[in-house]
């Protein structure tokens, strides 16, 4: 299996001057799980045998051969990077091709990129993870890191909202997490068919009753931007300092390494300065329409 073509022509090739961050690494699809009607989780095996180590909250530029690339958060366990795990939602374009990947297909991967959640910053403090919809996928690695090092943190709370019970991600894991005495789990859906026994309402409703110590809480928030803004406001109102409310922002990305310019939010490159940002830095920017 060759990764590079022949670059021994007499004219100096690109590779001789600087390594090109735009070259993908091939990964083979090891397993596919259909999570909901528009979301799948893929487990990817690096063809060159080198596991992709990453920090919770980072993403890769995932490529469907000949179609294109999109930034996708890594949804696996940072403590066990043997297979690269991605949970992808079909929103058209490249993602439509990725959710149709089958076992044995080879995808291109660049990364990992970006600033992660920084879970360890909360050593000795409470951690609340607030996820909306597909936002649970980028937060899953943070949760696993937290649970894998549980004794380092005080209270741990997961607040998760989705549209309906059928849209809940990782339902088996959610149940297992809810059973743990060292993790409080509050799941809320927007609406549900009759017979559903869980909470129906707005995702933020359980926050006020979570019993957090706001002066010693790290909040990790991911979901649609409007939802993140509301959650962030609620957390600040509860007394969590803005610098301790971390959001994962999303913008159009074409390179993932700060060169293409697409992901800029005023002076920030979301791919390099983010995607995880403290509310103290993000709030002045995400509250300006069309910035």
């Amino acid at each position, binding site marked *: 299996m060759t990764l590079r073509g022949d670059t021994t022509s007499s004219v100096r090739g690109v590779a001789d001057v600087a390594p090109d961050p735009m070259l993908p690494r091939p990964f083979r699809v090891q397993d596919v799980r259909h999570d909901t009607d*528009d979301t799948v989780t893929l487990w990817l095996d690096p063809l060159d045998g080198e596991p992709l180590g990453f920090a919770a909250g980072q993403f890769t530029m995932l490529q469907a051969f000949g179609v294109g690339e999109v930034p996708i958060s890594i949804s696996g366990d940072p403590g066990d990077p043997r297979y690269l795990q991605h949970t992808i*939602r079909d*929103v*058209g374009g490249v993602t439509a091709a990725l959710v149709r990947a089958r076992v044995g297909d080879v995808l291109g991967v660049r990364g990992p990129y970006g600033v992660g959640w920084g879970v360890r910053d909360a050593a000795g403090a409470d951690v609340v993870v607030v996820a*909306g*919809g*597909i936002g649970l996928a980028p937060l899953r690695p943070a949760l696993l890191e937290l649970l894998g090092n549980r004794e380092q943190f005080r209270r741990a709370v997961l607040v998760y*909202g*989705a*549209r309906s019970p059928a*849209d809940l991600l990782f339902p088996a894991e959610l149940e297992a997490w809810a059973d743990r005495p060292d993790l409080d789990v509050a799941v809320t859906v*927007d*609406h*549900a*068919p*009759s017979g*559903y*026994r*869980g*909470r*129906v*309402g*707005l995702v933020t*409703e359980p926050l006020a*009753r979570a019993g957090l110590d706001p002066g010693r809480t790290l909040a990790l928030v991911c*979901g*649609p*931007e*409007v*939802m993140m803004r*509301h959650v962030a406001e609620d957390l600040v109102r509860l007394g969590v300092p803005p610098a301790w409310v971390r959001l994962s922002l999303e913008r159009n990305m074409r390179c993932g390494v700060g060169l293409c310019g697409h992901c800029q939010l005023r002076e920030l490159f979301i791919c390099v300065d983010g995607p995880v940002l403290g509310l103290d830095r993000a709030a002045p920017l995400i509250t300006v329409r069309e910035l």
Partner: protein
Amino acid sequence: MRTMKELLEAHPFFAGLDDEAIELVVGCATNVHFDPDEYLFRLGDPADRFYVVRHGRVALELHVPGSGQQVVDTVEEDQVLGWSWLVPPHRWFLDARAVMPTSAISLDGVCLRGKCDEDPALGYAFMQRVAHVMYERLQSARVRLLDLYGGGRDAAR
């Protein structure tokens, strides 16, 4: 075994009400309990009760032709259920069904309305609290109306 007065005082809805006011309310209150799938009330029934949920969870449901019965809200511990006793035409416009063993305090709506008519200060205190509950439910419904998790073309930004 706590008295009704103690139970009412412990519930967040009644926080800030003075002793006299609580005593007035006690006169309209009874303890109730519902088993899972037991209905508290049904759409169209006369709305003459007000529930203060102590433990458990109640699902508020509407029937949608084609999709069947849908849960649009749940009410649980420390929350209250029902304002149709205060607002004409005093009829429930949802079904309410317990989805787990639920204990609540049931307040007689007619009795409460009578006491509020006699004591406007009490009435105002109730109005303030109910208005707050309605505000929160309205905000919750409005934000869910945006269908933010929907994604794609229809998602609000």
